[in-house]
């Protein structure tokens, strides 16, 4: 059933129903703000709690206790009185807080006094030779299938990359009876030393014990190769093998499926298209929005919470969602501020949730050679532009990602830079001897997700059109 928003204007519109969005919408609605939660998926949860209300996986242990925390958040939201619309793709947001949303093939416009963006994270591009072959996919895509349909790989499967999610996915696949032939760990040896000074915070964080036991669980069942310094997928129109170098030794193994993952980065497209200022984060190696302590962005009225505000994980996302919502309540309905959690308490929750993050960021900082490809490796999948193509354009005068569009169509395809943006920025920065901040990023424009011409043609006419018709 298709449900359009009930009103044309809301006090609060929250975009995204992951941990941050669920918490933000519930907090806002509990305080009495008219609240609309728009979410792209079929049910609440985002990626972390994907299919929390519908998963066919019933054995709780298989997805881990952390996953089921999502159920409480959903319950709180449903009791809060917030209006919730799923399968709702927000395709435009501007600095006037006008929102365009596509729901079941029809678009509607709503206006908000406050917006909280909780659009979460994307997997970082992993541009190795052969990464565009059928049979190579991201770990996140595999996890989506696992959570929503209990589908796990049964062919010869290799998982390559690094980061907490990689180990989580491996554990989940194994618990559901899936097959993993080998794990290729690309964590740089030097990262262990770099992360050491931050180890104390990590050891005392909730991540530590869980992470360690998960890695033990996986390593007991799968051959893990660490210190992988080179990685390539090959095959004729379909993945056939994965070759890698570890400890100076090259090895090639046959594979039907290669799952790649080297961490997640903020999903910035909607925020950037709204004109929100972003900065290059040199530790997390991505663009993060410039925010104040309550998550308010450079555009008045728009706050960002969750991993879209800088990667912090699910626990931090929940708290940041509450903080952003409380700040909005304080601004719009000061009298209701007593109904929401105290800011001081939330800030201490956040400090707790963020403990250990610097350690993880440092340890799992992807190596330059896995972020910045060379030669014939594809950078932009939509337009099939290689690393060499980009460097050739730099040599004849392209200075940044937007200028590059005059030479190559990088970033102009349907993905709007989601799969190439970071690579292009870092590649051009390296080639020009500049920082990514100086090089910049694509200027992103709506629609942030494509809509059909027919759908746009069917939106309600503007008042000016109606007047023109009346006048004849």
């Amino acid at each position: 059933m298709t449900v359009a928003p009930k009103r044309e204007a809301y006090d609060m519109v929250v975009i995204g129903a992951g941990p941050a969005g669920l918490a933000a919408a519930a907090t806002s609605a509990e305080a009495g703000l008219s609240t609309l939660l728009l979410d792209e998926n079929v049910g609440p949860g985002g990626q972390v709690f994907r299919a929390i209300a519908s998963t066919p996986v019933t054995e709780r242990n298989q997805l881990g206790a952390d996953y089921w925390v999502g159920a409480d958040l959903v319950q709180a939201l449903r009791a809060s009185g917030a209006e919730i619309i799923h399968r709702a793709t927000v395709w435009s947001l501007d600095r006037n807080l006008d929102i365009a949303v596509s729901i079941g093939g029809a678009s509607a416009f709503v206006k908000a006094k406050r917006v909280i963006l909780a659009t979460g994270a994307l997997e970082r591009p992993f541009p190795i030779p052969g990464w565009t072959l059928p049979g190579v996919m991201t770990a996140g895509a595999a996890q989506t299938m696992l959570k929503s349909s209990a589908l796990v790989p049964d062919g010869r499967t290799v998982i390559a990359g690094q980061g907490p999610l990689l180990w989580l996915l491996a554990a989940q696949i194994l618990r559901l009876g899936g097959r993993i032939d080998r794990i290729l760990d690309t964590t740089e040896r030097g990262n262990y030393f770099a992360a050491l000074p931050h180890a104390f915070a990590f050891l005392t964080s909730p991540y530590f014990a869980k992470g360690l036991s998960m890695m033990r669980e996986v390593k007991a069942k799968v051959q893990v190769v660490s210190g992988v310094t080179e990685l390539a997928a090959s095959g004729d129109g379909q993945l056939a093998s994965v070759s890698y170098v570890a400890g100076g030794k090259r090895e090639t193994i046959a594979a039907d499926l290669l799952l790649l993952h080297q961490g997640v980065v903020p999903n910035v497209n909607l925020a950037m298209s709204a004109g929100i200022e972003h900065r290059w984060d040199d530790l997390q190696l991505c663009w993060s929005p410039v925010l104040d302590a309550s998550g308010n962005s450079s555009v008045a009225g728009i706050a960002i919470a969750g991993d879209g505000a800088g990667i912090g994980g699910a626990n931090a996302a929940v708290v940041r969602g509450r903080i952003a919502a409380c700040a909005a309540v304080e601004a719009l309905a000061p009298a209701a501020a007593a109904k929401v959690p105290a800011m001081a308490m939330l800030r201490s929750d956040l400090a707790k949730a963020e403990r250990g993050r610097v350690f993880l960021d440092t340890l799992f900082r992807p190596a330059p050679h896995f972020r910045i490809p060379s030669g014939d490796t594809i950078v932009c999948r939509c337009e099939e532009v290689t690393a060499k193509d980009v460097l050739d354009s730099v040599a004849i005068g392209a200075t940044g990602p937007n200028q590059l569009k005059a030479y190559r169509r990088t970033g102009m395809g349907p993905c709007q830079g989601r799969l190439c943006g970071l690579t292009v920025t870092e590649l051009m920065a390296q080639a020009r001897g500049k920082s990514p901040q100086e090089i910049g990023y694509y200027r992103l424009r709506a629609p942030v997700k494509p809509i059909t011409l027919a759908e746009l043609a069917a939106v309600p006419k503007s008042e000016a059109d109606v007047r023109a018709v009346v006048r004849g």
Partner: protein
Amino acid sequence: MSTNVDAIVIGGGIHGCSTALHLCLAGLKPVLIEKDYAGRHASGVNAGGVRQLARHIPEIPLSIRSMGIWEKISDLLDDDCSFESYGQVLVAENEDELAICRARVAELNALGFTHEELIDAAELRRLVPAVAETCPGGIVSRRDGAANPAQTTTAFRRKAELLGATVREGVAADNIRHRDGLWHVDVGSESFAAPVLVNAAGAWAGRIAADLGEPVPVETVAPMLMITSRVLHFIDPVVILRGRKLSFKQFKNGTVLIGGGHLATPDQERNETVLDWKSLATSARTVFELFPVMRSATIVRAWAGIEARMKDDLPVFGPSSRHKGLYHQFGFSLHGFQLGPGAGAVMAELIVNGGTQTRIGDLGIDRFHPSTL
């Protein structure tokens, strides 16, 4: 300490870049100053229409001059600018509109212009098979076409620099003053001096003219465009409508550009525009009605470039009416891209020779300020 050059060109749009290039070709050493980067605004993000069709009569000679350069653009720039020439077609949606077309072509013919040609329903269908069958005809300008605007503007800039122009990007021209017969302009920590100053600053040019005592009726506008995903090839010429705001172009890669002059809200200080989706929906409806083949295409991106529009829709082009050595080249009012190559050539003639064979008399700033020179 000022650097002496032969000319200072302010504005790295297609006009400023073209003028800088043509000055180099004439043996001068200009400096080109662009506050962002060449092609950042309207010149780099417009529809790319290379159109003589449906122009105001006073700018037709400049447009024809420009067309000759477009047809040899590779020779000039060592870059094909993705220029292609499948004509531009103005579609009449009913008999009334066709009658207006007929009168227009007759008027042009009487003035000696033959580039616009009246076509009937059969020829329209031959040129644009996908158009709705109810359209009775229109006008074609067969030498017209389209180019890639960012590629073109960048190519002009690159060639100008190659031929000796100094290019300063990322810093605005500041503190413009005339002293001892020379124009002085600060660019960050640098300063340039030249006997000639060209004001080609697009949406920012009106302010420069006003500061120099020559205010003109100009506003800042941001016409919107949107582009679709790839669809099967179905159209070659650029199509514009007589009655409704629409321009339409399919590129070689299958993507379709939809424009027509609906406006976004510009924010000149921030270099930003806020799109008006309800107006874009009007464009979508027009395409939906005229080109049923497009209905399932997806819109991938929409944008708007900031530019200057004159109250009378005509550019300000030619020497200042107050200051010796000052030249204006702005206010192209949503149709300046095709004029860029020719306008640069003519501007260089005005500067170097003091005159030109191309008729531009109706475009001067003296239409607002009688000359005091």
